[in-house]
């Protein structure tokens, strides 16, 4: 039954994916500004030179034809050449995807690890000091813009204490060592984790409060189970469903990169590349990134749906 469900979902993904590419292609092309102007920049080119560039990149063709050419190449694994850098788009994306996943996944893991105990604590003893502290942190995290948090951390740990690097991925690119990478990850990951932790604490607290009122929790308690077992084994498992949903909704961010954080910490990720590509109207790169993000999000959503089943056996797949 589950295999049939997965197969059906994959079939639905195909038109969804094509729809995404059509929307992304035409919307980005219809936006004012053209890639040739941005390629040319301050250079003085003649109309003949401009025409040659347009021809080279296929921009002299009708938009619909451009889309079909792009799509035909894309399904063969050819994402084209960046207008901006003349490099293969696929190579550019792969160079940036690793650094992005590194900080986004780590930040999700860190935020989940911190948010779950804080949320549980707040739900188990509502209106206690722990609840107020957790809620305070949650509100602070939601209310503070991440660029502000980033600047504060840079000032404290980079400028004043001088204990952590504030930009880049390595001290030197010629020797890439894991401890050095981890040191460079600390501040961007802290900012991203802080950004996510607020919502997660509130989600865990809210769903735990709800679950702890359920009959089966009362039954478990009356059976004489330890409170910790009741909370963790019976409560948390059911409370995790909205948490998983929140993480699922973060998938585009996880793959697409954290634009602001990557910019501030000069982290060479996909978000930074996306901004550069949009600014330069580098359509081939924009489309390449869109494809990667949409594929991961579509598959990720399926995985999230399957995880629901693991958490709650009552969920069946039809």
């Amino acid at each position, binding site marked *: 039954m589950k295999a049939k469900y997965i197969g059906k979902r994959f079939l639905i993904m195909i038109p969804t994916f094509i729809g995404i590419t059509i929307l992304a292609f035409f919307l980005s092309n219809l936006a004012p500004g053209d890639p040739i*102007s941005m390629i040319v920049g301050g250079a003085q080119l003649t109309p003949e030179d401009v025409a040659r560039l347009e021809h080279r990149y296929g921009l002299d063709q009708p938009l619909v034809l451009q889309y079909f050419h792009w799509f035909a190449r894309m399904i063969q694994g050819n994402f084209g050449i960046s207008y901006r850098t003349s490099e293969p788009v696929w190579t550019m994306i792969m160079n940036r995807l690793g650094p992005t996943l590194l900080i986004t*996944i780590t930040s999700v893991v860190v935020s989940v690890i911190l948010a779950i105990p804080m949320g549980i604590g707040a739900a188990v003893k509502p209106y206690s000091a722990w609840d107020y502290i957790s809620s305070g942190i949650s509100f602070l995290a939601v209310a503070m813009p991440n660029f502000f948090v980033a600047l504060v951390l840079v000032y404290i740990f980079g400028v004043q204490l001088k204990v952590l690097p504030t930009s880049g991925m390595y001290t030197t690119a010629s020797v890439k060592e894991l401890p050095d990478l981890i040191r460079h990850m600390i501040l961007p990951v802290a900012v991203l984790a802080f950004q996510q932790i607020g919502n997660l604490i509130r989600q865990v607290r809210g769903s735990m409060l709800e679950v702890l009122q359920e009959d089966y929790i009362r039954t478990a308690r009356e059976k004489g189970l330890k409170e910790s077992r009741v909370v963790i084994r019976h409560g948390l498992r059911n409370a995790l469903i909205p948490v998983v949903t929140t993480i699922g909704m973060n998938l585009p961010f996880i793959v697409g990169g954290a634009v602001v954080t990557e910019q501030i910490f000069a982290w060479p990720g996909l978000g930074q590349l996306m901004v550069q590509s949009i600014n330069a109207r580098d359509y081939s790169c924009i489309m390449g990134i869109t494809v990667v993000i949409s594929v991961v999000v579509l598959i990720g959503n399926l995985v999230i749906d399957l995880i629901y089943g693991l958490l709650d056996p009552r969920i069946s797949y039809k």
Partner: protein
Amino acid sequence: MKKRTRILAALLALVMVLSMAACGGSDEPVETAGTQGESESGSGSQGGETTTPDGEKVVTIAMTSAWASWCPYFDSGNYTDIVSDQIYDRLWVTHKDGTVDPRLAESYEIDEDHGGMTIHLDPDAKFSDGEPVTADDVIFSAQLDTNPEFNSLKRDQMKYVAGTDNGGACENPDELGWEKIDDHTVHLTFKEVMSELNFLNMMNRYFYILPEHIYSQYSIEELNTAAPWQENMIGSGPFVYDTSIDGERIELVKNENYFLGEPQIDRLVIRVVQGSQLLSTLVAGEVDVIAGGGVATLPLSDWPTAQSTEGITAVSEPTWAYQAMIINTTSEKIPNAECRNAINMAINRQSIVDNLLLGEGVVVYAPFSDEHPFVDESKLTLPEYNPEKAKQQLEENGFDFNQTLELIVPTGNEVRIQSTVLIQQDLQAIGVKTNINQYDFATLMQMMRDGDYDLGMCGSAGGIDPTEPLGWLGPGTTQNFPCIQDYTYSDMFSATNSILDQDERVEAFVDVWQYLLDDSPVCYLYASNDLAAYNNRVQGVDYDEASQLNWKTWTWTVTE
């Protein structure tokens, strides 16, 4: 349940490991034939980033955006040139005042009729793979740059060479005015008689000499992609490509055989740092030099801190870059030159410089400041601030005060955005209503090119070449933002090219600038200084040369 938890944990760990691996793998150093000096570097403390434990002397330069291309000819921006200039050398460097110093060319002689020049290459110059730099390399570089099938964005620098069209393209390389005399001598024929300094100021800044023995192996189609350039980064500059992280940094090691002298530092790192983080990374010791030169300028808000921070030298360097408000000459709302001139007169430029630039800049009326060798404001009738006269001139020339002008400004440059508000107030004071709209740069460029605006803010890097402003002033260029329909400016600027005597040429430009001021398709506003800074442990940093991409990095030294 326990089993499922373990599976989930294992999956999570796997994803982490894979993403770590992806990071490491994607940025493996690209070994090149010219790569030298692999060395260990510390991963440790601040300050340790500038000298490695094994004593390697490292200097890190910060700029605010990544280089766009591995090929020096594929990009028109300084972000690529600042890197290219370290790897590939040029024939000469042009100083800010227009004088030139030799690099690959140790000398030149101008033909008696000023129809060309003979260039003598330095016989000691070598590429980083050990091959000598010869006349064949110069000819090859010129032929490649002028080849219309090659995607060069620096082709217009060749437009005064015989055999090229108005854009610098040459269909038949045999007709190109570059000729080999012997292994170390080339002759260059101009399209028309002109002063050699005039030619060098226009051409020399971006003419990188490429090794023929490397790049002639590739077809033009291949050379139009990044791969040949990335795989064979062989130049004759002071540094050699070592490794990079895409979009984050490029690391170069010294070219021990550099013909102008072995660099005093071992490794030069060029990094990307966001503008707001420039000062903090400098103070934290993560970078040593803020590049200036239009690729990294300190925000004005950081300027007082930079000046007062111990161990840092802050430099406010005047440049030829300028900001302007362009007027759409085809807009029916601004019907004639008199109205444009009145708008020009209504702007209080001094207020912008005093209040927004905090004095770190100067007012300009012509494209360049009065310091420019080709501008002498004492001989010009300037559109100085005079709101009463401006209003009267508008009234006399049928300007409709009931209409609203669309004033567009690109996002990004905060001072420019704020100056737009001051200009709006100045115009409001004489009864001209404006509506300000901000757009991203690509959108704004398209709107200006299409004439879909009335007034538009824009800036230019300027330069010592006095014909540089022509890019905005006539049809047939990609930046004819004022939508000028005739070739008046083109003819006026071109006429100055054939004047051989420098003083006479300066005098000729008085007429050009005066016509430009009276016609006012562009209201030139201010020239802001380059605000930069460097760590005092680095000696030899000269910001006067930064705007011309003339870092003498091989003479830089570091002390601990």
